[in-house]
């Protein structure tokens, strides 16, 4: 009886310590166009109504989440890269487990997959090559994939395809994203593609599928489109 009691107390204590020493910060992602949540297959129009486009695929990797208090690293998440896929709503919710009672005001993460992972062979889960995010003509993950049709694309059937990747300099496609956050349980991250379709997607830049200068430019622009909804 005393042993049983001991175990009950022990268990409660362990549970108490556990629940109190870890906090869950949940990141919720949303891709928007002109204040509207993007739906795959829906037709969107440019501001002047001249151009229209549809998004069929939007998938990208986020990796190396870390929390900072100003310039001081407070927590580095051990989580493996995660694949955000608009087709899978559950992929837009990312729980990040961190020690409790941290004070932080900056969230940093990478858009894409680092070089080391890119040269380390096959991985499962979100990194499995069956996710369609690994090139088959040469080594390398596709960090960001955006496909659809657009009236401005001169390609056959007006398609546009952005497969951004590259793991070797000078064409290293990974981009660091740094966002101010407050100590909240849920952080809403917005990927706002309005300016992308307004200024980046064009008659010249509608198909980017290898690591090159164009891809680096588009990756720079995409990285600027992340923000936190306060």
């Amino acid at each position, binding site marked *: 009886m005393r042993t049983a009691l001991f175990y009950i107390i022990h268990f409660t204590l362990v549970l108490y310590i556990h629940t109190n020493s870890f906090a869950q910060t949940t990141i919720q992602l949303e891709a928007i166009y002109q204040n509207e949540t993007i739906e795959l297959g829906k037709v969107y129009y440019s501001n002047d109504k001249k151009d229209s486009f549809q998004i069929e695929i939007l998938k990208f990797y986020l990796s190396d989440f870390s929390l900072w208090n100003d310039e001081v690293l407070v927590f580095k998440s051990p989580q493996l890269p995660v694949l955000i896929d608009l087709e899978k709503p559950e992929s837009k919710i990312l729980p990040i487990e961190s020690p409790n009672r941290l004070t932080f005001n900056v969230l940093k993460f990478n858009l894409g997959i680092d070089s080391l992972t*890119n*040269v*380390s*062979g*096959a*991985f*499962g889960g979100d*990194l*499995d*090559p*069956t*996710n*369609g995010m*690994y*090139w*088959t*003509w*040469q*080594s390398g993950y596709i960090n960001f994939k955006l496909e659809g049709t657009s009236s401005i694309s001169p390609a056959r059937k007006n398609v546009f395809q952005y497969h951004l990747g590259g793991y070797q300099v000078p064409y290293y496609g990974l981009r660091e994203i740094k966002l101010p956050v407050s100590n909240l349980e849920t952080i809403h991250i917005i990927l706002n593609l309005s300016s992308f379709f307004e200024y980046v997607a064009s008659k010249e830049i509608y198909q980017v599928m290898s690591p*090159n200068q164009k891809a680096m430019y588009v990756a720079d622009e995409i990285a600027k489109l992340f923000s936190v909804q306060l």
Partner: protein
Amino acid sequence: MKQRTLFLFSIITCCSAFGLLKYHDLELPKHFPKPYFDFEKESLTNAKIQLGRALFYDPILSSDNSISCASCHSPYNAFAHTDHDLSHGINDSVGFRNAPALFNLAWQKSFMWDGAFNHLDMQALAPISDSKEMNETIENVVLKLNKNPHYAQLFYAAFYDSIATGSRTLKALSQFQLTLVSCNSKYDKVKEGKTKFTSQEKKGYELFKKNCNACHTEPMFTNYGFANNGLPVDPTLNDFGKYRLTKNSKDSLLFKIPTLRNLKYTYPYAHDGRFKKIREMLNHYTDGIQRQPSLSKELKKYIVLSSNEKSDLLAFLLTLNDSTFIFNPLNKFPQTISSGKEGKK
């Protein structure tokens, strides 16, 4: 440790997991360098090797179940494709490069003629996806494998989980290919002191060290680098090698330096299989080099060899053939292939 054993880790793993299994107890000769592949991180196991072997010989990897890896990488040709200058695949499509021999891959740092793949695991994605080879997707391969009860067993044995995934499929293929080690040629026996070169082979060896060893470095007979060896571009292919990937003029016409082991079984030679005989290749080095800006610095100085010297060199090169590798039953078609069809030969 008396002898360095490449697959020590695998044997330990197998023994501890299954009690008595001993699959690949190949002992590497002392003159072999340490493999580049990290076996401590990724140890070989018998079950994974057998799964990889089944996959390697199974046309289930192609979209119409007609082409297996072995269709172009036959064990009898040191896993190259004798007689075919260019690889060919589904619906008799012809590719644009020669199917390379597959062995001693654990020492190789990058794969394909232009080094497009940085890891053996991922390399298989190229032939699986190429519209002229297997014309399939890894997604669909995994779907097909998951419908197949035989593979459920093999995956379970290898990964303690019957579900096929992309990474497991690729890793198993990789494991089988890593067991393809050729190290039992006459050259190797001479190095081990078990036999001697004939006087002609010895002369050839000296010529080899003087003229060839800088790139085809012994004992692997390649330095695993890339070079422009002065082959004129075939206008029907317009293949500029590594330049295709980097778009850097320095990489124009750079191709992987292939090993010279097992040449007897791997003809025709060069990235586009343009040479049917080794002597033609030698003649290229003495008389055929085209001096483009990216020509390998080792070839800037002319190679001069008399006809007799070429014969001596040839005699030496023939000591690099390893018939025990060609006839090793462990490398061959496994007894049961789940899809019931043998791939096109």
